[in-house]
């Protein structure tokens, strides 16, 4: 098997998320080519690679927005390859998006409420007022993201950076086990990046939340990630700690530029 699975054996842990031979083609273009990987509970893993290397496609495949051409995705020991996106979300997988996907015509607060955990609920429950705990959590997250003064503003009126923050809030709202962050730090001011970094670390340590993040900001990656994957042409180019990866010659050639 591949390296990450061996690492798991050392730790005696089941991977939280694993991909086996994940392949995705767009017409003649191979976006993901027989990719194997595993992510273990509590890890913070970085995913880097040049533009067009298949990072976002991988996220789309993991959250079931796009079907796989072949291969399997296993989350919490369950094969989710044939599940619907909302079912995967109910299992505890949340993500942010590179292109903003906030609900522009709803208020910031409604955006947060609608991102809560919906698992096992009937439609009738949604006709009742929101649970006070949900509202409290939404308020708490908004305050943390410094968006609390915009609670009743329409999400579409926020600036790009604020929408980015809102997306992070929406991803954390359902108390997920695994969060996929797609360029979460781009367009966010440096002070706030620090706060977000702290929050991610805190969540990972206290609640054992696992993170997988796509990022071009190597400082952010180096700060947070215990392990980094490098993708190129839909294949894994390298894997290791951020220092190891940054010194890897293949990676330097493909990504950092010589």
């Amino acid at each position, binding site marked *: 098997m591949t390296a990450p699975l061996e690492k798991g054996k050392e730790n005696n842990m089941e991977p939280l998320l694993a991909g086996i031979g994940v392949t995705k083609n767009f017409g003649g273009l191979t976006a993901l080519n027989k990719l194997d990987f595993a992510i273990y509970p509590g890890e913070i893993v970085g995913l880097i690679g040049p533009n067009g290397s298949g990072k976002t496609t991988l996220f789309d495949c993991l959250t079931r927005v796009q079907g796989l051409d072949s291969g399997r995705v296993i989350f919490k020991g369950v094969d989710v390859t044939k599940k*619907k*996106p909302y079912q995967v979300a109910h299992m505890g997988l949340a993500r942010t998006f590179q292109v903003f996907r906030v609900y522009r015509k709803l208020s910031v607060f409604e955006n947060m409420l609608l*991102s809560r955990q919906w698992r096992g609920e009937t439609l009738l429950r*949604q006709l009742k007022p929101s649970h006070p705990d949900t509202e409290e959590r939404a308020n708490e997250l908004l305050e943390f993201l410094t968006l609390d003064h915009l609670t009743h503003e329409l999400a579409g009126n926020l600036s790009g950076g604020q929408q980015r923050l809102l997306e992070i809030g929406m991803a954390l709202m359902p108390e997920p086990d695994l969060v996929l962050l797609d360029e979460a730090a781009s367009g966010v001011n440096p002070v706030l990046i620090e706060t977000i970094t702290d929050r991610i670390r805190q969540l990972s340590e206290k609640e054992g939340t696992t993170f997988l993040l796509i990022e071009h900001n190597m400082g952010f990656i180096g700060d947070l990630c215990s392990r980094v994957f490098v993708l190129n042409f839909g294949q894994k180019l390298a894997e290791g700690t951020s220092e190891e990866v940054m010194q890897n010659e293949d990676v330097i050639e493909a990504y950092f530029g010589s």
Partner: protein
Amino acid sequence: MDRIIAIIQGIVFSRRTHIILLVILVLMPLLHFGRESCKDEGQLAAMIPEASCSYLIDEKPVTNATLLTFTQMFILIILASNWNLTGGFTGYIDFGHAVFFGIGAFATANLMGASRWEEWPALLSDWSFWPAMAAGGLVAALFALMIGSATLRLKGPYFSIAMLGTLVAVREIVRVSKNFSGGGLGLNLPIYLNRPMFYYLSLTIMVLIIGFISWLRKTEFGASLVAIREDEVGAEMRGINTTLHKIAAFGTAAFITGSVGGMWAYQNTFIDADIAFQQTRTIDMVMMSMLGGLGTVAGPVLGSTVMFWLRDVVWSNFLLYHQIFEGILLIIIVLFVPEGIMGMFDRENSGTSLNQIIKGWFPKSSPDEEDSQ
């Protein structure tokens, strides 16, 4: 200009205005009973000329014609509000919503004993109006669940076309199934010409429906419908079972539309495939919602009212040109007031425009196409 809009807004959206309006609407038909009226009003016999009969000589301040006009307006408001549930909130532009109206109308008519088919089961005949109307709604809702579970999986324009096709197909199927629809002869319902009754019935339904929809919009379910319109893929990935939500909204709208169809059939006393499944009825719903403001609670109400009276003026003054008028109005709405009357009053609502809905059908895929802030 802003000042004027603010003043109008203050008047139109204050609760006091609504209550005053409601009281006027409730009391208005009382004038109908002011003068001597036909002894056996509500019977066909009353139509047969007696010099004093009020159907022929209008002596009352409020005539049957007035009441009928208002009833029709209320029906249009109900229909537009319901259409808005799928078309405005959820962003699925339904070009065939009149199909539920027609199905409700035919189901009610048959249940009330209008069937021309000798073998129509006696158990399903001669129902009284109320259960028949509710059953009409139920049949329409069942049909909506069936057709919706297929068509609502289609995206944007495909859904619209599929529903348009459904309307045309169902109309033709109903037309040829003579046992059900009476074919070219149509169906005659038991005659009941109590205009005040229909006036109050449609007024009550209208108030209930507006209340229901404004309550629904405030629940998480209502908000999730807007979320589906704004970003269906995002909503699905954040755990909303979008298909279930869409079908639930569609079924609810169909139920109400079907019941109203049943009421309309009883009031009209005659239906056939052409008038029950009129294409223009759908277009009315779409245009009135657009004029008022898609995706808002008050939009369809305002839009229907304004359009109804505008149309009345145009019909009575420029009879041959009224169709041109509607086309021009549509162009004006799309070009100049895309978010409708509500968009002019208050931009901070969950309303939208056809333009934005269509944009949402073709999602941005790369960051390069992002709107600049």
